[in-house]
């Protein structure tokens, strides 16, 4: 990858936090989870991101608490290292180099100093065979330690982290793969295998999916593909094992977890219901339904008070004692696909894209945090595979962010396409969008593009559809003042029954261009007159956009046959064209720049150019593998002042794009990174207090106040003690009541302690006055600054250090002397 010195491609947000099971710390204050190449630490009470543990160079594949020290955590990664961290201060303590990519990690209290890792079989590095190995972690003082002593425990295990579990007091480990359960006893150094038939009855899928062992008894719970949970007992011999079956899930059981006391078993699956089985009465169960998305992992805090579930929509839910959802940590939802383009909400400047099924997510790019989900479909989501669900396929904001238009569709096999066009008005009161109009079946076929007119006078929406028409929708004015206006179709246009594929408004909203296969038609939205047609065969038009600002006379079109054309609308002729396989054209709303993503031989290139200039401003080859389908320019809060030609295009806005693997990337410059680094240092938070946004705000404010106070009280250092900190009060509060002296005595002491503070405050005021006078003088006689400065310095010293020795009266006298003395002295000097 070619990386320019100034412009760097940065992974911004959206790392997967549901990849592995999260860990709750012993004191239940923090939650740790693997997120891409780092481990994120969140506060469990406020769901706020605290910090991250950075150091791994590849995907982190597992996080476990160190059983011998509960303030430390082990993490393993595909880069072949196990790292030991102090998670409260985010310090890397040790790195153990294993040498193989690691897929999961298990530890047990019984086996101190040993970690169990799942690594690929040594002989078949590329194949899908994995083994469970025990690694003795060497004690040594070095930061980096090589730990190459691997001893195989089990061969042929699943790389899925839920597929192995330590049993009671670490005596055995149970692992499942396919149709086999294998239990390895450490004492006997012997393993037993139990296998199920592939299908005992019709429709039964017996394959194991996950395993969990009871912490106090010899019992193994296994989850299966058909939704059954089997409880295995008496498995310490080959023959006479027994199992009982629990069945509630209708889909596969994704994860199983025993509570630390072993009284309850938790299970979850695609139904997104947390099922809570009572261990002793197995037919009794509690449910926590509608958690939002399929449950992928369940973790329980060591004291059993908190549960947390990871969900397939990149979310971690923290649940208090199985009844109440107390916090939700939500990352960028990566659904099945992004059908809506990336959009920037003009109001909140948040990135808007498909989120949970049937929702739009508003994602803050600055805080890497989801702001909220807007329910578009407003239907109960049925968590079941193979159902045709409504999906939000298009979304658009108008220029001011007052209106949001969404299109949802549901295609059923062999049935009519169901399309709904919904228009949402922004409600200032609730600060969210409220449904205004629903148009069922706005078109007879798929909607290919939808845009609002950018002109400020009219709110007009244009949709183009494969049924050969484009429609303009207008907010119908209702004569009644109290009734809200609704949207209605204003115009239906078409061109020789060709199918329109894309449309674009000019920057001022005076022109609308619609691409009908090979022909680009230009319309006037005011009169709905067809102004002109432009055509540059061969190849259907894939994307259209107008130039902005000084380049607004240009219209750009990308066609399927590797052609990028630029028409001049004043002359209605082709200005230039170039052979390029442009997959996406994106205009910067704040400048003339246009970004074009081209796909070439399996990877994407980026060109940033102005339509009026022949040379691109910036180009980068081989941006990423695969086609870039979605990109957006996000306006910056404050303009960068970079003068370098290569980075100038990033001054006003930032370009974000989604790769095929749904990673959100952006470009950043060096100056910007420096600034970010500085600001992150500023926001370091004292973690003795729960981290909330309020606390951050308050902390910042308090910090400023403290600084101010320090500046004020600097000359008199002895006064920094606050009344709360005074020894008298501390004594009063911390001595047990029965040894305290009588209340009257204490009262006097207490009042005195308060009095000190008030007198010192007065002192301070006087002091300030004195200083002000002094400053005035300074202004008066600037010319004679030199001798006076020296003098004031000599006077200042005794005040700072000798102040306690002087009485107040003396001090005042001294100050008087100081203020009076100089004038005549300096005048003398002048003479």
């Amino acid at each position, binding site marked *: 990858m070619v990386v320019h010195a100034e412009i760097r491609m940065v992974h911004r947000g959206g790392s997967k936090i549901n990849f592995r099971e999260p860990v709750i710390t012993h004191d239940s204050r923090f939650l740790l989870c693997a997120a891409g190449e780092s481990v994120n630490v969140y506060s469990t009470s406020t769901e706020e991101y605290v910090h991250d543990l950075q150091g791994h160079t590849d995907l982190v594949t597992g996080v476990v608490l160190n059983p011998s020290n509960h303030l430390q955590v082990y993490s393993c990664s595909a880069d072949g290292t196990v790292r030991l961290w102090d998670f409260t201060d985010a310090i890397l303590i040790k790195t153990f180099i294993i040498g193989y990519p690691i897929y999961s990690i298990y530890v047990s209290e019984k086996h101190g100093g040993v970690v169990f890792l799942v690594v690929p079989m040594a002989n078949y590095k590329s194949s899908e065979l994995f083994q469970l190995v025990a690694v003795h972690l060497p004690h040594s003082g070095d930061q980096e330690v090589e730990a190459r002593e691997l001893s195989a425990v089990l061969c042929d295990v699943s790389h899925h982290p839920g597929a192995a579990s330590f049993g009671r007091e670490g005596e055995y480990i149970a692992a499942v793969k396919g149709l086999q359960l294998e239990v390895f006893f450490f004492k006997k150094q012997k393993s037993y295998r139990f296998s199920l038939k592939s299908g005992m009855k019709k429709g039964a899928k017996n394959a194991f999916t996950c395993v969990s062992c009871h912490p106090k008894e010899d019992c193994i719970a296994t989850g299966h593909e058909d939704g059954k949970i089997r409880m295995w007992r008496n498995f310490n011999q080959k023959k006479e094992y027994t199992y009982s079956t629990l069945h509630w899930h209708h889909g596969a059981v994704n994860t199983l977890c025993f509570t630390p006391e072993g009284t309850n078993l938790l299970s979850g699956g695609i139904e997104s219901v947390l099922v809570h089985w009572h261990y002793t009465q197995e037919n009794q169960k509690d449910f*926590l339904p*509608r958690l939002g998305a399929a449950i992928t992992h369940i973790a329980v805090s060591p004291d059993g008070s908190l549960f947390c579930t990871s969900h397939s929509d990149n979310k971690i839910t923290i649940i208090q004692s199985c009844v109440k959802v107390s916090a939700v940590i939500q990352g960028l939802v990566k659904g099945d696909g992004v059908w809506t383009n990336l959009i920037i909400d003009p109001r909140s400047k948040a990135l808007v894209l498909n989120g949970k099924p049937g929702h739009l997510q508003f994602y803050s790019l600055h805080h890497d945090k989801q702001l909220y989900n807007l329910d578009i479909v*407003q239907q*109960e989501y*049925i968590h079941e595979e193979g*159902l045709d669900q409504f999906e939000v396929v298009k979304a658009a904001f108008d220029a001011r962010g007052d209106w949001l238009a969404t299109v949802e569709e549901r295609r059923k096999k062999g049935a009519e396409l169901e399309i709904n066009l919904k228009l949402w008005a922004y409600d200032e009161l609730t600060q969210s969008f409220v449904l205004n109009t629903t148009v069922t079946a706005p078109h007879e076929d798929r909607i290919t593009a939808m845009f609002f007119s950018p002109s400020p006078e009219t709110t007009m929406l244009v949709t183009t559809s494969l049924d050969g028409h484009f429609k303009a929708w207008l907010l119908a004015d209702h004569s009644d003042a109290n009734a809200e206006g609704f949207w209605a179709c204003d115009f239906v246009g078409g061109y020789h029954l060709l199918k329109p594929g894309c449309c674009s408004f000019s920057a001022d909203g005076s022109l609308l261009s619609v691409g009908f296969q090979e022909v680009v038609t230009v319309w006037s939205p005011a009169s*709905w007159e*067809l102004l002109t047609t432009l055509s540059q065969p061969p190849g259907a038009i894939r994307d259209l956009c107008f130039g902005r600002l000084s380049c607004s006379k240009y219209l750009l079109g990308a066609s399927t046959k590797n052609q990028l054309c630029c028409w001049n609308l004043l002359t209605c002729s082709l200005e230039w064209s170039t052979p390029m396989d442009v997959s996406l054209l994106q205009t910067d709303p704040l400048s003339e720049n246009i970004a074009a993503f081209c796909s070439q031989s399996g990877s994407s290139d980026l060109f940033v150019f102005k339509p009026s200039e022949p040379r691109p401003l910036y180009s980068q080859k081989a941006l990423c593998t695969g086609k870039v389908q979605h990109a957006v320019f996000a306006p910056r809060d404050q303009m960068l002042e970079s003068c370098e030609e290569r980075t100038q295009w990033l001054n006003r806005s930032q370009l974000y794009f989604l790769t095929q693997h749904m990673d959100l990337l952006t470009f950043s410059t060096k100056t910007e990174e420096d600034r970010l680094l500085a600001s992150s240092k500023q926001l370091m938070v004292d973690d003795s207090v729960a981290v909330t946004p309020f606390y951050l705000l308050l902390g910042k404010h308090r910090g400023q106040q403290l600084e101010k106070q320090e500046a004020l009280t600097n000359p008199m250092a002895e006064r920094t003690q606050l009344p709360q900190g005074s020894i008298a009060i501390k004594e009063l509060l911390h001595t047990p009541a029965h040894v305290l002296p009588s209340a009257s005595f204490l009262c006097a002491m207490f009042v005195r302690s308060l009095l000190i503070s008030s007198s010192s405050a007065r002192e301070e005021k006087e002091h300030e006055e004195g200083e002000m006078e002094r400053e005035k003088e300074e202004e008066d006689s600037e010319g004679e600054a030199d001798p006076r400065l020296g003098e004031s310095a000599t006077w200042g010293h005794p005040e700072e250090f000798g102040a306690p020795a002087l009485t107040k009266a003396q001090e005042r006298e001294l100050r008087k002397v100081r203020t009076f003395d100089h004038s005549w002295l300096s005048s003398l000097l002048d003479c």
Partner: protein
Amino acid sequence: MASFKSTKIPIYPKLGEKVTPDTLYWKNYKAPVQIKEFGAVTSIDFSSLAPHNYAVTASTRIHIYGPFSTEPVKTFTRFKDTAYSGKFRSDGQLLVAGCEDSVVRLFDVSGKVALRVFKGHTKGVHVTDFTSDCYHILTGSDDYTCRLWDIPNSTELTSYKEHTDYIRCGTTSKLNRDIFITGSYDHTLRVFDARVEKSVMTMDHSQPVESVLLYPSEGLLVSAGGRYVKVWDLLKGGQPLVSLKNHHKTVTCLSLSSNGQRLLSASLDRHVKIYNTTNYKVVHNFDYAASILSLALAPDDESIVVGMTNGVLSIKHRKSPEEKREMVGKQRMQPVYRIFVKGRNYVPKKDDFLVSKPVKSHLAKYDKQLKKFNISKALDTALESWRRNRKPEITVAVMKELDRRGTLKNALAGRDEQNLSQLLNFLIGNVVDPRFTPVLVTATEMILDIYQAVVGQSSVVDRQLVRLQELVEREVDYQQDLLEVLGMLDTLFATSLPRKEVPCPGSSR
């Protein structure tokens, strides 16, 4: 943890009239009181005096009714022929009336015998009115003349013979004692000034004029004749302002609502139309049983009195606001509501600590069953007879929801004869409704698939299936016809439009 999202019941636009403040105002009348008169009611006039009695001229009599009486308070019968145009003087003391026998009679409202008799016309007098100074009377007659009479001396003051046909309407100015306006069957309206010997203004209505009306400001004049109602600007020398053609038979009478904001016109087509006087759009419409000859509104629109050709006098009284309030009060008295609002309007005091209770959302029965995945039960609930008949959209919405969940087939299956015939009944009733067709067609197909095997076992179901088949066939034919018509219209539109680059004409639905 999100809550269960209830099934979305689509709201279909209500057909019919839109509710405007005008419709609410004009609908706020009680059911009409009907009084049978001896002949066609030709004129109604309200007294401006407090109880607002009104004089009804019908046949050879004039009845005076009290505001709420159904029996006449007083009757004047001393007419030898059909009486016309019984009018109160502005002080409510005197009443003047014309007669077919060309004699004009003046009555004291409390008396019985005519106080004065004005003789001089040679034919029937259809128009009488008092001038604004109360001392003169204007009359218009079928002998083409209109005259002014002095009341104290009962002498004729002036006579104008400018019209060339019957004079059938006229009015005096309320601001100027000398000015009056007459309308005639010679299609003209003439403005006379008693101080001048000739008419001062002439307007051509181009239809026989049946009624004239002056605005309270007297700047505008409204005339009715033929199917037209025309408004003239007198201050601009009689310039026509608007011509309204909302009736389909002759307009016979005009009236203004008390605040002058609405104009009412009554016609032989049995309608009373109400216009907004700012934009002259019809804002409301009353229907009556017979052709209307006369119309009057009580001050403050307290009642609308309409006289018809069949001699029926219809009186509509306004609903008093007290009655309305009483009804509302009654509702509030219901204990259920009182308990419902108990504590809801409590305003917390300043230092109160607010403990909010989780709001329990109410779910409909079918939603509760859907929440528990009881799909067959949910469909049964949705098919309950009142819901099926009154709110078919709910039934259809539940079916759609089941279809979305992929369980509609399961829910439809396993029904006995009674259940199945219920279901088929619902389909027969609603499958051709364009709002429901997309959902119900899938449901129908599924039912046919499921119950294929049992066809022929029950005569009830078989009969319904045959009906359903006929219905669908008829609908298909109907749609085909409609498409043909659409095609014809398209060709017509295409030929009528000029050959120009026109984007896709007539393609909008």
